[in-house]
């Protein structure tokens, strides 16, 4: 199995605290993997390392077999690694359409191509009616959908989604899940970080659970959620 993304022995320390400890896993093309774990388990730190926002102290990350440890986010984006942030990041003083065009043009699409892609995305995400508003005027949920859309202006090799379903309306949640399911069926690879267990169960055949910086379990989602170690991590010793 040729892996799309391989994480090998990644470790990160902040002073005396070990946030990520010797984490390794492989993601094959076309997988939809959930990344779960209680607060403070190191998921976000790991994601930040994978998307180029933090340097790992040790370990390697490979995309399509090519090492890409320590690459800046923009370089990774051009390699096809797109990251969606937990706290929504869009361009508030630019209109919705331009928000999408930034990513499209930056990744090499021509003006017309980019416009077409943007229009198609706006339709699919059902926010076409606000295309001319400044992104800062959108509601929180619309902003999230916009940021979500920005990741798909050019089909990414790997999409890292950091808590995309946090604090949004069920309707929008549904739009995003439908989108993810549709793309996954076409062979798109995802890593999905979420606390929303029903969604993880529904979407992700495989899950990786972290706690205290280590990988506790990396298996079929149903098995991971049943593992005693995982239950203990989430609910404490008494529940296991």
């Amino acid at each position, binding site marked *: 199995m040729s892996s799309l993304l391989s994480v090998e022995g990644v470790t990160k320390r902040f002073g005396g605290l070990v946030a990520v400890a010797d984490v390794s896993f492989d993601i094959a093309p076309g997988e939809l993997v959930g990344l779960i774990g209680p607060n403070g388990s190191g998921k976000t730190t790991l994601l*930040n390392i994978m998307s180029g*926002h933090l340097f790992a102290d040790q370990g390697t990350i490979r995309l399509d077999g090519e090492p890409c440890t320590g690459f800046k986010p923009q370089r990774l984006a051009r390699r096809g690694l797109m990251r969606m942030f937990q706290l929504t990041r869009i361009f*508030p003083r630019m209109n919705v359409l331009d928000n999408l065009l930034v990513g499209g043009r930056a990744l090499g699409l021509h003006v017309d191509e980019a416009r077409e892609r943007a229009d198609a995305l706006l339709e699919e995400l059902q926010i076409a009616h606000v295309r001319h508003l400044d992104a*800062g005027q959108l509601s929180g949920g619309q902003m999230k959908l916009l940021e979500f859309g920005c990741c798909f202006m050019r089909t990414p090799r790997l999409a890292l989604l950091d808590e995309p379903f946090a604090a949004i309306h069920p309707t929008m949640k549904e739009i995003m899940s439908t989108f993810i399911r549709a793309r996954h069926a076409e062979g798109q690879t995802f890593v999905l970080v979420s606390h929303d267990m029903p969604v993880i169960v529904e979407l992700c055949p495989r899950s990786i659970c972290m706690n205290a910086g280590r990988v506790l379990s990396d298996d079929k989602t149903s098995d991971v959620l049943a593992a005693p170690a995982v239950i203990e991590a989430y609910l404490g010793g008494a529940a296991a």
Partner: protein
Amino acid sequence: MLTGALAADLAVNGLVTGLFYALMAVGLALIFGVLRIVNFAHGEFYMVGAYAYTIVAARLGVPLAVALPTAFLFGAALGWVVERTLMRPLYANIATWGLMRDEYAVIVTFGLSLLLVNLVDKAIGPYAFRAPALVSASRIVVGPALMSGQKVAAAGVTLVTLAFIALFLRFSYWGRAVRAVSQNRLGASLAGIDATAVSSLVFALAGGLAALAGALLSPIINASPDVGAFPAIKSYVIVVLGGMGSILGAFIASLLLGLVESFGAVLVSYQYRDTFGLVLLILFLLFRPQGLFGERGREV
């Protein structure tokens, strides 16, 4: 040729100059610690103090011991008013500026600086004013150095003031409140501290200290509309060198800058003595932005 006697003279003079810088820099560091902005109008508080002292003492004939505190109060009042009227968007998260609070602070304080300089220039006149000295003796021996009486008296007042500020910050309720808000604004307000009141207090204090510096030095550096420009730049340099927000850092960096300029003027170049600080500033901002004592800010 740097003899021991010359070195000692330069050292003492440098340290004394550093003390005056400290009055400006400590205030600026306080503002940055609490409001997280650089006050580009800081030099104008110095200027207002110089004028207040000069006018009150020379024109109104008020005794000098009263004129000095008056200058301080003038600066403090101005600082308080500025904070109350102009600094609200920084914490109120007003929609138009929202994300660009840093830029707002730069523009507004820059504009304020222009306003004050031109206001004084128009209202009072562009020419320098002579102010009465605190002590008339023109040459007093201080250790290995020879200094004007004014400088010695001013240095004395400065030392006392700085000591008082240090004690205030360390032991008084409001002093501790200032330190708390400096470290964590949200946390401090959750603990019951009125962060906005602290901001007003700090701006007033900084204004007062800068005004005091202007007043103390006005017999030597006479009051004129743009008299605050140089002290301001020096204090920006010091605050960065010392570590943005660190009071102790600002104090030590002030003394250091005073020494560097004093020795540099003799050993390197008298002409370019004002550029040493600027070059140091750029170097620090590039390679050690947290200065000597500051904390590295976190990203993302």
